[in-house]
């Protein structure tokens, strides 16, 4: 997987959050402040524009520009959290021009660690961590057992979907949703939903470019 692959992933995310903009905002209006889809669409639009003009010869440089742009443009909580995730992944990938599945697994683990540290969040608190953590674990396990890309990607998104779905029954302990207390139960966490969408975009791009 080279820089072009990672640019295609980010482009796919930009398209998906645009399509899912109102859905994500709808989820956020139930338990947050009704701007998650709007902010991500605005942020990844800016990322796309930055990638179109900058020179990004390595996977790491693509993700670093993505993360930095999200931090600069989004605001709110999702800007720093997703921005940090992409920047940590970028640093993990280093200057390699071509990366394999084990390096991607390490990068995703680094992204997760960055989000957990910045947000002081752990699993079960109704946040994006609840989609990312099981997804990263399932992906790493599949890769370490020698799975090929399609199977590893399937493990990634299946676990992300299940994790996002599990947030419905959780009571929020982080962010504005936590002010609702028990009233936050019964709604899917918008951050977990958007994290799952981004991982689906990764799987879709991998499938498309493998053909």
């Amino acid at each position: 997987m080279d820089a072009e692959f990672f640019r295609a992933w980010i482009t796919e995310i930009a398209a998906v959050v645009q399509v899912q903009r109102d859905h994500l905002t709808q989820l956020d209006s139930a338990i947050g402040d009704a701007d998650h889809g709007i902010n991500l669409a605005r942020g990844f639009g800016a990322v796309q524009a930055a990638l179109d003009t900058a020179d990004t010869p390595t996977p790491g440089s693509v993700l670093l520009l993505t993360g930095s742009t999200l931090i600069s443009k989004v605001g709110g909580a999702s800007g720093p959290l997703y921005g940090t995730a992409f920047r940590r992944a970028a640093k993990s990938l280093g200057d390699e021009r071509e990366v394999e599945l084990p390096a991607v697994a390490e990068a995703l683990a680094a992204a997760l660690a960055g989000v957990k540290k910045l947000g002081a969040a752990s699993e079960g608190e109704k946040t994006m961590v609840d989609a990312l953590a099981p997804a990263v674990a399932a992906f790493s396990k599949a890769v370490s057992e020698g799975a090929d890309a399609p199977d590893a990607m399937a493990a990634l998104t299946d676990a992300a979907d299940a994790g996002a779905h599990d947030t419905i029954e959780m009571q929020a302990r982080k962010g504005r949703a936590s002010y609702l207390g028990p009233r936050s139960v019964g709604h899917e966490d918008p951050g977990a939903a958007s994290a799952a969408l981004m991982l689906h975009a990764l799987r879709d791009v991998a499938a498309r470019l493998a053909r």
Partner: protein
Amino acid sequence: MKKLINSPDTVVTDALAGMGAAHPSLAVDVENKVILRAGGPTAGKVGLVSGGGAGHEPLHGGFVGYGMLDAACAGEVFTSPVPDQMLLATKAVNAGAGVLHIVKNYTGDVLNFQMAAELADDEGIEVASVVVNDDVAVQDSLYTAGRRGVGATVFVEKIAGALAERGASLAEVAAVAAEVNERTRSFGVALTSCTVPAAGKPTFELAEQEIELGIGIHGEPGRTRAPLQPAGAIVEIVMDAINGDLPLAGDLLVMVNGMGGTPLIELYGAFNEVSRYVSGHGARIAANLVGNYITSLDMQGFSVTICHLTNTLADLWGFPVDTPGLRWGR
């Protein structure tokens, strides 16, 4: 919903440009949405930077000036600003004595200011931060993001600003900011929802004869809903919540704050009830503010903020201040 705006996309920048035009004492960077003092930083003085989503005017930009803030960063309506803005403001106000970030306790504000502080540190600027969390309506526990920062922000900016103006060190200014926060409690009530311009419809629904107790400054839900009742009864609920968290005693600094859509005649009526409650509990209002200081767009409602003063804090409160939103003594 009628709004006196050109468009939701330009509402924040139009207002910032207007503030710059109205107040020659301010230097407004409309593009980066940063408000600074026109004269530049004061040599050797600790710089004070605050910021947050727009929609709470006069907070924060209206409190930039002598005796209060050096810079304020505005985000989109109810959305925190980004680290780039905060770094720009921090660099602009750094006069060699370090910079204090005054942050309201919302996840977005805290994360963005945290990243800005790291960036400033990379550039060799010493930054201290105080996170304001005075809203007793929110349970402060492991199960929430903690108490929200509301009215105490005005007191922190004023009192820390006075101490900085007197030439205190960053550690001293940060300590007094934290002390004011610790000694202050707030509680808010909404009579109607606010309407965010980009959304175009009310953030929440309240029935004609219903009020929301413990409302946040972005229209977030509070503790509970209750039927509308006379001002005296509503104020008693508010004061019981504050008094239950930190019992009233001694000299108090009291703010009765309008949420943006409540006329002064009602705020003064509320202050009368607050005053009666305070003297009934053996305490004394030594200083007060009545008016719109930390608003939620067009929301009808009010909040009460009470700080337990010390002689030092009372003295700093009385120190001269010259900003668009607060001015006395010079």
